[in-house]
């Protein structure tokens, strides 16, 4: 294991950086898109609600790999050339945003409906009430589950290995076939993933206990 770190340390670190980069980009976009669809799911307009429902159910029930491969194979064939990293990140954004939407929606619905009614009665419009009254309360409630979604996102970013995204998992495969020491290579890769996810996971557990 130590020899793997010595010989291929820079490659592994580059992969770690790509994984982190992809995860952060995907997190930001998935958070924005996911919250958008979560709000659409609770607006009075039935048409918008149906659209949001369909989006969430479709992307929640199709494997991440299928979404990613679609962007890797089909989009370059007919529309525009995109790199493996980009297609992997887009797939990750679409997939995660559906889960984040579901999380945020449950947060919004856990806020007492009286809050919205009170705000409306005070003369705020629906969107103002959403923006200033409901969402701030909902987000405090959903921070621990959102953290868990972020952990999942970091783990799911390993799907970039399928589409030549040069992430940690991809570099791990390259090193494994180069060094012929698959077992210790994958152990190294595992340790690096744990460095990203395990502290986050324990912090979320602490946060959950504290907020509960």
């Amino acid at each position, binding site marked *: 294991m130590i020899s793997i770190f010595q010989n291929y340390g820079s490659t592994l670190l580059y992969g770690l950086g790509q994984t982190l980069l992809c995860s952060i980009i995907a997190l930001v976009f998935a958070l924005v898109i996911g919250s958008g669809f979560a709000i659409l799911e609770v607006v009075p307009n039935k048409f918008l609600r149906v659209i949001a429902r369909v989006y969430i159910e479709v992307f929640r029930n199709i494997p991440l790999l299928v979404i990613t491969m679609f962007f890797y194979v089909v989009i370059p064939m007919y529309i525009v050339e995109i790199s493996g990293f980009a297609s992997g990140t887009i797939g990750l954004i679409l997939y995660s945003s559906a889960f984040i939407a579901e999380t945020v929606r449950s947060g919004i619905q856990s806020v007492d409906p009286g809050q919205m009614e009170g705000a409306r009665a005070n003369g705020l419009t629906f969107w103002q009430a959403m923006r200033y009254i409901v969402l701030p309360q909902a987000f405090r409630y959903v921070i621990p589950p959102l953290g868990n979604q972020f*952990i999942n996102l970091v*783990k*799911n970013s390993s799907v970039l290995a399928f589409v030549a995204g040069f992430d940690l998992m991809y570099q791990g495969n390259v090193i494994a076939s180069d060094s012929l020491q698959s*077992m210790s290579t*994958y152990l190294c890769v595992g340790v690096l*993933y744990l460095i990203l996810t395990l502290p986050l996971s324990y912090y979320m557990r602490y946060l959950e206990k504290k907020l509960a």
Partner: protein
Amino acid sequence: MLTVLGAYSWINIRFLLEGAWVTILVSVCSIILSYIFGVILGIIRYVEIKYVSAIVGFVIDIIRNLPLILIIFFTYFGLPNIGFKPDPIWASVIAMAVFESAMVAEIVRAGIVSIPTGQMEGARSTGMTYWQALRYIILPQAIKNMIPAIVSQFISLVKDTSLATIIVLPDLMNHAQIIYGQNTNYTIPMFLALSVMYFIVCYSLSLLSQYLDHRLGTAKKSGEVEEVVQGAER
């Protein structure tokens, strides 16, 4: 247009269905294995046997925080280094079972924790031993609470079997790739078929989970379980 429709010829559909069969086979095998091991590990983690529970808990945490793809690679390419060579189907079943048992164990632990302590105290005070109380009083209630969460976990298991194409498991995803690899005109129809097939399986499981939630009257309680469960995908 005709070239596109050719993608759905009987030969291709049959080939896809063969792939779907492997997907279902692998899913069912790993569901059964991970349910058995998950419940056992979850109980061990809950009952706090000295040292054993702490070690089991730590191992569960580690497995839950690793990507499934890494575990699949490790099983298929890593284990032969120490002389164990599973074929793709067994490698994916083992990898899925290991990963999902850790997930299920966490759900089971959360389910047991969600039962009020008065249940255990009441059972003990009527003369039951600790294990009897666990077996006849706590677990039946806990399992009822956590069934929706477990079904959700199995939905992500079905989706995750697609990751095993990377070790050439001849599943749905792999067969679709073979078909559109032979004729690029078939790419979009194949992705459509893939999406529809996975969607049907996963969405019906998701409806089942909602139905069970409703039927068992656990909507509120299973929400509590899901809150305690870390990293559950839904």
